């Protein structure tokens, strides 16, 4: 209707002198100078040694470290997300024992440093030389030597994944409680069970709240994986460190690591954008 009005009698547009923003120009100038200084240093500072960066960027040890970073990130986040959903649902359970168990798990795994947890998993054999299944104070049906099951890789994965699950649990719980209770009631009134309501109605809506902080967690995990150095495992950053410890090419190799981390983070950010769009259906102007 507004459009029709303007079509019949186009009103005179307002002619006014716009407000000046000198502060914006000053800020832009300062930033431009800083960027120019940094760009000049990148090109002229010999310490960067760009040819060395190029030489190592795709070298075998760096790529092997990169693969390990990716494997650890993906698997640890998988454990973290699945574990987090389970823990969050437990935490919201009407059964106080189940809710309490989840609360204690979160308390322990968030309350102790990750670096300690990694070491504990690695040295699990010192606490429990054999792992087995049996009845407490009764017979043991079978058992295995702890050190054969818990390799350094498994210890790294358990340390990162189970710690992440505690953080993810709180993120998922926040998402679940953010969904209006009326949604649960409406689904219940239609004859849907609690499980169906959770899967079909509550979780998809909670995802809108869960995805952004989870994106943070994945990006954080990408870099946290370098902590596995404390139990003698390696990934991108450890590989880079090992190379510059030998060659003393510290700066170029740090640049190699930075470039890879930035590339991976950028890819993850793009993925997060699409996930957010997917779970924003019905909430955003997109897809209306």
């Amino acid at each position: 209707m507004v459009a029709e009005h303007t079509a019949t009698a186009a009103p005179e547009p307002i002619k006014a002198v716009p407000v000046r923003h000198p502060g914006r120009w000053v800020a832009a100038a300062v930033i431009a100078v800083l960027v120019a200084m940094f760009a000049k240093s990148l090109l002229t500072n010999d310490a960067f040694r760009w040819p060395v960066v190029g030489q190592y960027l795709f070298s075998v040890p760096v790529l092997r470290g990169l693969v390990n970073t990716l494997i650890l990130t993906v698997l640890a986040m998988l454990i973290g997300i699945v574990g987090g959903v389970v823990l969050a649902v437990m935490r919201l359970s009407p059964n106080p024992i189940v809710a309490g168990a989840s609360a204690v798990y979160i308390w322990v795994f968030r309350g102790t440093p990750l670096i300690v947890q990694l070491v504990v998993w690695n040295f699990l054999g010192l606490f429990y030389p054999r792992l087995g299944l049996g009845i407490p104070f009764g017979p043991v049906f079978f058992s295995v030597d702890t050190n054969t099951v818990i390799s350094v890789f498994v210890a790294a994965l358990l340390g990162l994944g189970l710690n992440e699950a505690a953080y993810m649990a709180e993120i998922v719980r926040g998402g679940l409680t953010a969904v209006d209770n009326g949604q649960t009631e409406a689904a219940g009134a239609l004859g849907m069970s609690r499980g169906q309501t959770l899967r079909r109605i509550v979780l998809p809506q909670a995802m809108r709240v869960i995805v952004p902080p989870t994106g943070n967690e994945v990006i954080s995990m990408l870099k946290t994986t370098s902590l596995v150095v404390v139990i003698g495992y390696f990934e991108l950053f450890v590989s880079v460190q090992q190379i510059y410890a030998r060659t003393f090419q510290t700066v170029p190799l740090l640049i190699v690591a930075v470039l890879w981390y930035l590339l991976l983070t950028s890819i993850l950010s793009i993925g997060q954008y699409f996930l957010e769009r997917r779970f924003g259906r019905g909430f955003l102007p997109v897809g209306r």
Partner: protein
Amino acid sequence: MAVTPTDAPMVEATDVHKRFGRLEVLQGVDLVVRPGEVACVIGPSGCGKSTFLRCINHLERIDAGTMRVAGELVGYRESGGKLYELRESDIARQRCDVGMVFQRFHLFPHMTAAENVMEAPRTVRRTPRAQARERAAALLERVGLGDKLDVYPSALSGGQQQRVAIARALAMDPKLMLFDEPTSALDPELVGEVLDVMRGLAGDGMTMIVVTHEMGFAREVGDSLVFMDGGRIVESGPPREVLASPREERTKAFLSKVL
């Protein structure tokens, strides 16, 4: 709708009590609603009318008394003179027979109008997608939204959302429909379109319990009018009689404020 008094009751509430902590919201409610009857429940806010409605499909658990829908105890099973709580799956099965429409619609915002209507038949009854979609299209057509199948709730007006909610409840072929102040959250000019759909539903013989502030609708469509106050039914009877010549002082006082 003609109501024959010999029909077995669709809803039979006997001395229903409900308390939230120390607050006794329902203090002994007795009500019989027969098949095909449209019962309108009015009363001041906080009188327990919404709570009573929610007890009928066990969204609230009653503390004393009995509630029967189509002869079946709600939420419990009687065997050998003892009451057994129903399992969650049995409660869900009972709720399939009772449709509910909420004041604030509670449509699923991540699903289109058609998906909202298809959801319960698909997940609860395992109806094939094509068949559920066909049914959803027919139901949305019936509430006047045949052109809004693939629209998300956020792009619909309040009146349209409430009509989708009615179609969603009808998709489970309920024997009874509960309306909890279905027009109270709507802009005044949108109230009519929702009441029209409800009027049509009543005309088709649906048993309905409507908690409402729409006295015109109650007078015109209702077979019975129930006035609640303080957790009890104060007065009930044919709507025209109750509205025109209330017997109880509290009914008079309430009606003088809202009419």
